[in-house]
C-alpha cells in the first residue's frame, strides 16, 4: 500500500476532525481518541516493519515527482520516532481519561491532542524543509492550546512566554528557510543535500547551518536557548506536561539530527564543534538545575534539558556508533520521560503538592507506584540492563572515537548527578515516615498507574531486548551516516 507512511499522520488528523463533532459527548470522545491512538500505533508498527524489510519508504504527495512536489520520507529513524510518538500518545491518553477533568475534556482537549500528534508525526516524516516548518506550526499551535487550556493563572502567564519564544523562533525558521532557498533554490531535503554537496558548503551555508541550529535549539531547548522551558513546562496539567516533555523538544533535536547529518556535514570542524560545545554546556546547566530543585516537577523538567544535551552530543560526534547511540537514547528518553512525568503526576495527585519536603513514606501505602518509579529512575540514569544504558554507552564510545574526551567524560559524570536527582525524589518521597494527605483516598492510583507501568515496561523491554531492537537502530544510523541512501531513495537516481 503506497500510503502506509501517510497513515500515522492521517489517522490522528481524521480523528481530530471527527472529535470536533463529538465535542459535547465526553465518553464518545474518550473511546474514539483511544481507539484511534491504538490504530495509529498499529500503523506505525507496520511502517517500521515495512521500512525494515523494504528499505526507505517515500511517497510523492499528489503524484508530483520528487524535487517538485512534497515528498514524505520514512527512513528507519523517522519510522521509529513515529512509533515511539504513537505509543506515548496512547499512554498519555489513557492517563488523561482519569486525570484531565471534565471541564477541559469538554473544551476540545482530545481534538487538540490529536492535532499535536499530527504535527509531531508529520514533522518526523516529512522530506521537505518548508513542510517541516508547517508541521512544526501544527504541533506548536496545538501545544499553545494545550498549555493554556483550563485558564489558571500560572498557565496564562507561562503560555504568554511560551508563545512569544516560539513565535520568534518560527519567524527565524522562515528566515533561515528563505536564506537556504535563495542559495540552493530548492526545498526538498534530498535535493538540498545534493546541491549543498555540489557547492561544497561555502561560508554562507555554514551561516545558514548556525541559523538552523539557533532555530531548532530554541525549539529543542539547548544551551543558551533553553531558558523558556522550565517555566513553561511547569504550568500545564500532568498528561500535557508528559506529552510536551516527551515529544516537543525531541522534534527540535530530531531536526538538528536531520539537518546536520543530511545538509551541513561538509564543514564539521566548525559546525559540529559548536554543536558539541553547546551540548556539553546544556548537560552541565541541566544537571545543575536537576540537582538544585526540591520540586518533583522541576527536577524532571531539568532532566529533559540534560537528555537533550546528551543526544545532541551524540549527533555532534558524527560517528556511526554515536548516531546509533543518539537514536537509541532519544527513543529511550521519550518513553522514560513520559513515564516519569506520569509517575510524578500520581505522586502529586496523592499528596496535593510537588514540594519534596512535604512528601515522605509513600512506599508503605503505594508499593506498586514506588517500585515502578524506582525502575524508571534507574532506567533514566542508564543502569544496565535498563534502556538508558546502551544509548549512553554508544554515545560515550562515539565521543571517545571522535576524540571528544572531555565531552564524553561529562556525559558519564552527568549520569551520576541525574541518578542523584531522581533518587532524591525516591529517597525523600517514598522512604521515611508515612504521612497522611488529604487526597489520599480520592486518588484513583490503580487506574492512573496503568499508563506509566506500560511505558516503564516498554523501557525495560528496550533494555533487556536490545538484541531485538538493535538491528532497527543500526539500520537507522546507517541511513543517517550516509546521506546518499536517503538521497537515492527520494530522487530515485
Amino acid at each position, binding site marked *: 500500500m503506497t*500510503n502506509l507512511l501517510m497513515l500515522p499522520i*492521517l489517522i490522528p488528523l481524521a480523528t481530530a476532525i471527527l472529535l*470536533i463533532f463529538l465535542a459535547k459527548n465526553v465518553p464518545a470522545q474518550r473511546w474514539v481518541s483511544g481507539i484511534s491512538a491504538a490504530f495509529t500505533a498499529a500503523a506505525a508498527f507496520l511502517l517500521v516493519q515495512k521500512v525494515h524489510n523494504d528499505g526507505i519508504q517515500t511517497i510523492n504527495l499528489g503524484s508530483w515527482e520528487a524535487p517538485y512536489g512534497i515528498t514524505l520520507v520514512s527512513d528507519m529513524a523517522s519510522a521509529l520516532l513515529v512509533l515511539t510518538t504513537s505509543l506515548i500518545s496512547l499512554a498519555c491518553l489513557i492517563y488523561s481519561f482519569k486525570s484531565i477533568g471534565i471541564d477541559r475534556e469538554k473544551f476540545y482537549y482530545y481534538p487538540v491532542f490529536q492535532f499535536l500528534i499530527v504535527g509531531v508525526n508529520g514533522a518526523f516524516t516529512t522530506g521537505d524543509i518548508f513542510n517541516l516548518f508547517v508541521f512544526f506550526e501544527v504541533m506548536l499551535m496545538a501545544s499553545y492550546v494545550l498549555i493554556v487550556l483550563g485558564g489558571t493563572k500560572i498557565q496564562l502567564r507561562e503560555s504568554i512566554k511560551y508563545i512569544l519564544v516560539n513565535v520568534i523562533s518560527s519567524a527565524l525558521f522562515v528566515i533561515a528557510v528563505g536564506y537556504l532557498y535563495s542559495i540552493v533554490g530548492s526545498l526538498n531535503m534530498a535535493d538540498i543535500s545534493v546541491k549543498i554537496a555540489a557547492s561544497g558548503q561555502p561560508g554562507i551555508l555554514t551561516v545558514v547551518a548556525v541559523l538552523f541550529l539557533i532555530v531548532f535549539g530554541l525549539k529543542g531547548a539547548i544551551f543558551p536557548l533553553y531558558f523558556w522551558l522550565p517555566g513553561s513546562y511547569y504550568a500545564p496539567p500532568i498528561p500535557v506536561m508528559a506529552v510536551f516533555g516527551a515529544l516537543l523538544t525531541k522534534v527540535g533535536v530530531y531536526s538538528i539530527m536531520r539537518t546536520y547529518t543530511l545538509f551541513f556535514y561538509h564543514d564539521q570542524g566548525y559546525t559540529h564543534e559548536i554543536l558539541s560545545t553547546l551540548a556539553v554546556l546544556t548537560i552541565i546547566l541541566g544537571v545543575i538545575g536537576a540537582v538544585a530543585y526540591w520540586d518533583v516537577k522541576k527536577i524532571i523538567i531539568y532532566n529533559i534539558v540534560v537528555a537533550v544535551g546528551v543526544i545532541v552530543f551524540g549527533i555532534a560526534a558524527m560517528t556511526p556508533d554515536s548516531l546509533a547511540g543518539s537514536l537509541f537514547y532519544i527513543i529511550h528518553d521519550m518513553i522514560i520521560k513520559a513515564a516519569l512525568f506520569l509517575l510524578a503526576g500520581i505522586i502529586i495527585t496523592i499528596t496535593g503538592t510537588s514540594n519534596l519536603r512535604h512528601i515522605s513514606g509513600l512506599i508503605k501505602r503505594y508499593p506498586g507506584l514506588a517500585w515502578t518509579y524506582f525502575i524508571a529512575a534507574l532506567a533514566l540514569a542508564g543502569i544496565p540492563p535498563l534502556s538508558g544504558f546502551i544509548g549512553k554507552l554508544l554515545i560515550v564510545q562515539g565521543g571517545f572515537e571522535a576524540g571528544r574526551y572531555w565531552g564524553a567524560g561529562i556525559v558519564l559524570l552527568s549520569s551520576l548527578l541525574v541518578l542523584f536527582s531522581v533518587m532524591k525524589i525516591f529517597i525523600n518521597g517514598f522512604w521515611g515516615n508515612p504521612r497522611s494527605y488529604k487526597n489520599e483516598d480520592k486518588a484513583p492510583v490503580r487506574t492512573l498507574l496503568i499508563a506509566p507501568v506500560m511505558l516503564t515496561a516498554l523501557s525495560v523491554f528496550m533494555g533487556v531486548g536490545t538484541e531485538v531492537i538493535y538491528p532497527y537502530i543500526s539500520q537507522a544510523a546507517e541511513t543517517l551516516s550516509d546521506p546518499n541512501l536517503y538521497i537515492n531513495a527520494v530522487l530515485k537516481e
Partner: protein
Amino acid sequence: MKTNDIILQTVTKVTLFIIILFSIHLFFAGHYYPGGGFVGGLMTSGAIVLLLLAFDMKTVANILPIDYKYMIATGLLFAVGTGAGALLFNAPFLTHAFKDVYLPLLGKTSLHTAVLFDTGVFLVVVGVTMTIIQTIGEDE
C-alpha cells in the same frame, strides 16, 4: 436617546449581496486568476461582519443559524476527504483528478477535485473568522 441606523441597515442590505457575489466570484476564479478559497472565505466572513455591525448578534444568529465550529470541522473534512479519496485508487495522498464536462448553461467546463479542497479551505476560513469574532463579541 435612541439611535436609528436605518441608513446603515439599508445600505448593508444592498451591499451584502454584492460582497457575497464578489467573494463567490473570487472563489471560483481561483484556478485561473488571482483568488481562491482563502480570500473568498475571508470576504464572505467580511460580509457577515458587516451584518454584525449593522444589526446585533442575536439577529444575525437568527438569520444564519450556523454553528461555525462545525463549519470548521466540515471544511477540514472536505479537505482531508479530497486528499484521502486518492487512497481509494491506491494513488499517493492528495492526487487530484479533473475532467472536462459539458454542462447545460455553462458549456464546456473543467471540473477538478481541487475545487473540493478549496471548498474545504473556504469553509474553514469562514468558520475560523466567525468563531473568533463571535467569541470576542459575546465576551463580557
